[in-house]
């Protein structure tokens, strides 16, 4: 089902936990769908110098959070906001179609954490315009054209 890379991040997730007195915390997902991700960041001179995650979810949710935090750690906020779910997918070596939304969740959890940081610190990032962490995201479609 999952690639070696996904399984590695699931079995040995990087950056699990919660930052005490984090500069920004974002939580996305919803319990109906069975995935919740919380990312906390510490920001120093516009650089995300620490990032941790907690995830309730399937293997690919855990792996997506893990790899996203690894990709972001040490990056500037500007750089971090460029991260898309596509980058997460690529870095993981792909996910099964029905699990692609997990990578979306990782992107969004990060954005939610940055938004929280921005709100708390009076910053504004144009990449976050229109972003709302509470939006629901459609799951896989069930119709088929062969």
């Amino acid at each position, binding site marked *: 089902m999952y690639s070696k890379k996904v399984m590695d991040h699931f079995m040995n997730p990087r950056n*699990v936990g919660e930052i005490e007195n984090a500069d920004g915390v974002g939580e996305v997902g919803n319990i109906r769908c069975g995935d919740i991700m919380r990312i906390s960041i510490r920001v120093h001179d516009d650089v995300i110098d620490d990032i941790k995650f907690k995830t309730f979810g399937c293997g690919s949710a855990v792996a997506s959070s893990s790899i996203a935090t690894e990709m972001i750690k040490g990056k500037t906020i500007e750089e971090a906001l460029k991260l898309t779910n596509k980058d997460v997918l690529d870095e993981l070596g792909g996910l099964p179609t029905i699990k692609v939304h997990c990578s979306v969740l990782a992107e969004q959890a990060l954005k939610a954490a940055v938004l929280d940081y921005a709100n708390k610190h009076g910053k504004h990032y144009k990449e976050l315009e229109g972003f709302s962490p509470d939006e629901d995201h459609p799951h896989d479609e069930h119709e088929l054209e062969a």
Partner: protein
Amino acid sequence: MKPIYMDYSATTPIKPEVLQVMEEALREVYGNPSSVYELGQTSKRRVEEAREQLASLLGAKSREVFFTSSGTEADNWAVHIAKKTKPGKHMITCTIEHHAILHTMEAAEKEGYEVTYLPVDKYGFIDLEELESAIREDTILISIMYVNNEIGTIMPVEEIGAIAKKHGVLFHTDGVQALGNVPLDMSKSNIDMMSMSAHKIYGPKGVGALYIRQGTRVVPLLQGGAQERRMRAGTENVPGIMAFGEAARLSKLHLKEHVERLTKLRERLKKGLMQIPESFFNGHPEKRHPGNVNICFKYIEGESMLLLLDAIGVSASSGSACTSGSLDPSHVLMGIGLPHEIAHGSLRLTLGDFTTEEDVDYVIEHLPEIINRLREMSPLTPRE
């Protein structure tokens, strides 16, 4: 690492005796049962012997057994029979049926049928009074499963059948999980039709059967050749059917011992796992499949649990085999009233004839670490 298979309700390995029958058949019994020559007639006789073996496990007549390709096909066929032979547009089922019934019912709704989906209580039982009052003039079918595949609950099918009979309504039960796990005697039963599947009783995949009580009008779902007394077309899967017959024979031989042994293992496993804090046992404590343990662990999600179990050699399931590929929480666990956050953390361990006490103890020993690890990673776990 010894592999420990605990997903017998998803599918079973094939027993050696069954394998032998099947392998011999694949090599030698290759004639088409519709053929006139001896090779074909031998195949035909073998199919009839298998039918008798399955009928004997059921306490039914041979002519009441029709082979299909799966439990799913049997379920679809039963609904089709009701639709085509009974006048009326209403059917009754319950919310925790297998998708082979639920999706068939939904397809019927699109065609203009009305379907009542009876709710179930926390054990998975329907309310018999509610059933009776749901019956209408134009009710053509009641379909309530015998044993639930996720939580293992054994439904009061004889009582349900008695109500159906009283009102002259056809009664079908999905018996896929019941066959081989519950003593059956169709000769004294109120069941009109029952679905079965070989790969749940140590037989091969790709063979099922529908029991149809004598006197019930039958129409085919699959149209074509004259097989199965013209009621189920398609060249018979002779080796598969023979293997199903052998599996039925073995099941009949060992049923009592099988149930007793599994029940003991199940209770041991349940006791061990219920030591884990914030765990919830699903289904009825006694009226359940002898090998089914279904527990929800709070704050964690099922698939992660399965992957970590797999990593230590344990094959298990979260909800049904069919649903665990999906993201939705199991409709069965929702049906018995669990909230989402608990339903997502379900683990189904189903034991079978190759399960040992050591297997059970291994899981009891190692599951707590897995639960802890996932709870530590979960944003839902309350901080101390």
